[in-house]
């Protein structure tokens, strides 16, 4: 079964290489009359998307050749997942809209639902949740929640869903309480190290020199619901840092380190793919708090491509670490029985056995 993944990965890399070779270098100089820069990083997003589709097709093709069906994909879409997806989409849109419209801080918080579905159900389910969230967000959701640029970033949401699904499948989100000091020590180094680095970058971002270094806590917008939800977001970010440290040192749960690594990795990849889209379609500005950051970087002399990439590499990891942490909390709040019924649910439970059953002809699934 690993053959499918290897084949898909090979196809993915091959397409990317072909794309890079045929397009040229990645100089992101912007010509005012022609900002559809054919030699620029904008092509990378296109190449990435094509490579993803090709990889997926190869995966499906190999599975079909092996088994005559597409079971591993279809299995991710049982009724329970289908019921969860609209809820996940709604969470994405509502929280994301709140951050973009009401709170001018450089994070997004529009992927909690995507990552939740990815972890519980699988990569393809997560990918589709992300895709649908972004498309609906632009075309179908009414104001005040509507978000114009979202659809352009649908491919980013797809990738986030895939990465979350893979993290879930690898068992990264499984609780690991009461670990030994040695293991916790390594985990602590990773976690604290990443948190410190991210916090410092966040501080840089929030006190962007171009706007006088004021940290803005006022939540804009007259809608009371935005006010409330806006504060929720601030609480989430602050709570994440405290919570991760608490997990690690109080509950001695090693998964805190996994959460941080998953968030960091997903954040970096998301930044790499969304930067070219943001730079070339929207000149780096999408109406949220991240715009200040882009402005600051441009003031410092960076061109649009570098500025959006810089902004992304600051905002995305923070955003994704927070998101993975929130998803971990949500999972902790769900009963084991409930989680177990999802396609990847068994990878989210603590290691341990089910109770013994008396003899007799019991039929069916035991856990």
């Amino acid at each position, binding site marked *: 079964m690993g053959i499918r993944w290897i084949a898909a990965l090979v196809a993915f890399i091959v397409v990317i290489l072909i794309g890079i070779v045929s397009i040229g270098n990645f100089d992101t100089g912007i010509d005012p009359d022609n900002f559809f820069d054919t030699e620029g990083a904008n092509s990378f997003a296109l190449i990435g998307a094509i490579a993803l589709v090709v990889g997926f097709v190869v995966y499906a093709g190999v599975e079909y050749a092996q088994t005559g069906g597409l079971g591993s994909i279809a299995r991710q879409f049982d009724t329970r997942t289908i019921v969860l997806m609209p809820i996940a989409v709604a969470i994405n849109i509502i929280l994301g809209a709140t951050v973009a419209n009401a709170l001018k801080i450089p994070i997004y918080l529009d992927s909690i639902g995507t990552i939740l579905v990815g972890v519980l159900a699988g990569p393809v389910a997560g990918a589709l949740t992300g895709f649908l969230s972004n498309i609906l967000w632009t075309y179908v959701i009414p104001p005040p929640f509507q978000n114009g640029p979202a659809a352009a970033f649908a491919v980013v949401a797809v990738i986030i869903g895939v990465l979350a699904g893979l993290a879930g499948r690898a068992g990264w989100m499984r609780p690991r309480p009461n670990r030994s000091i040695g293991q916790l020590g390594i985990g602590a180094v990773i976690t604290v190290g990443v948190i410190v680095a991210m916090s410092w970058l966040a501080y840089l971002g929030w006190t962007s020199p171009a706007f006088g270094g004021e940290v803005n806590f006022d939540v804009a917008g007259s809608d009371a619901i935005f006010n409330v939800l806006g504060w929720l977001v601030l609480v989430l970010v602050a709570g994440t840092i405290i919570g991760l440290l608490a997990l690690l040192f109080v509950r001695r749960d090693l998964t805190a380190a996994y959460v941080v690594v998953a968030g960091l990795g997903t954040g970096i990849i998301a930044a790499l793919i969304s930067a070219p889209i943001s730079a070339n379609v929207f000149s780096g500005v999408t109406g949220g708090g991240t715009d200040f950051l882009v402005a600051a970087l441009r003031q410092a002399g960076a061109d649009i491509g570098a500025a959006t990439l810089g902004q992304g590499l600051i905002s995305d990891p923070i955003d994704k670490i927070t998101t993975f942490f929130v998803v971990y909390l949500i999972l902790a709040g769900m009963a*084991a029985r409930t989680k177990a019924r999802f396609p990847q649910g068994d990878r989210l439970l603590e290691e341990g056995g089910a109770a013994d059953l008396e003899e*007799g002809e019991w039929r069916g*699934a035991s856990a």
Partner: protein
Amino acid sequence: MTLTLAGVGYRYAGASRPSLLDVDLELPDGAVVGLVGPSEAGKTTVCLVASGLAPRTVSGQIRGRVLLDGEDVDAWPMHRLSARIGIGFENPSTQLSQVAGTVFEEVAFGPMNLGAARDEVVERTWEALTNMRIDDLAERDPGRLSGGQQQLVAMAGLLAMRPAHLVLDEPTAQLDPAGTRLVGEAIARLAAGGASILVAEQKTDLLAEVADRVVVIADGRILFSGPADETLADPRLVEAGVAEPAPVRLRRAAEAAGLDPARLEVPLDA
């Protein structure tokens, strides 16, 4: 078409002990069977097993057999069973599909899923709406109805699939008195028309009205069962933790006070 549970035991996935042990239950054509018991007795589990949701949707392990007219349905997929046995739940709003803008589309949801021809879907939908007396609600948004109305819509949605049996798990538990009356009357109408219904209820008054037989369950086992009026008047009922119907309570109070219940001008059999 009789629905039979024979020696059924059930353990939910991940649970430490079984929720049902050795349950025998029969729901013949045209009969209304009431299922009573205290909370956590296993009433819901019986309903889930009878409808097939356990162990298919709600994972777990089953022992014993579930039979439709003598045929073991163990290998039947859920959608095939859903066309024979309809199950309603206590929460009216979570039964809504959330994809229907009108009550008509909501009720049509089941037959549409079953792939019936379009004209037949339309006909069945109108039939179900009329029988639940909600055809005037056909254009309304189901999300904006009262709890009782939503419960009627849910039942109409089940009837539109033309099941052989209906299983209702505490249909009035989350309704206000008006809703309870609405749903109670609907169930009574169905019963009078010869429907075959298994109703799990804590409100024994409703069962006193419509049930032919009553089964008492506690701790996952059947305690006793019998014809409705006998079983509901049985003193063991209260011991098992179930509130007896009002007329029975009245009669007992009268006897305890030394009055002759036969001389009270109150109908004691609802």
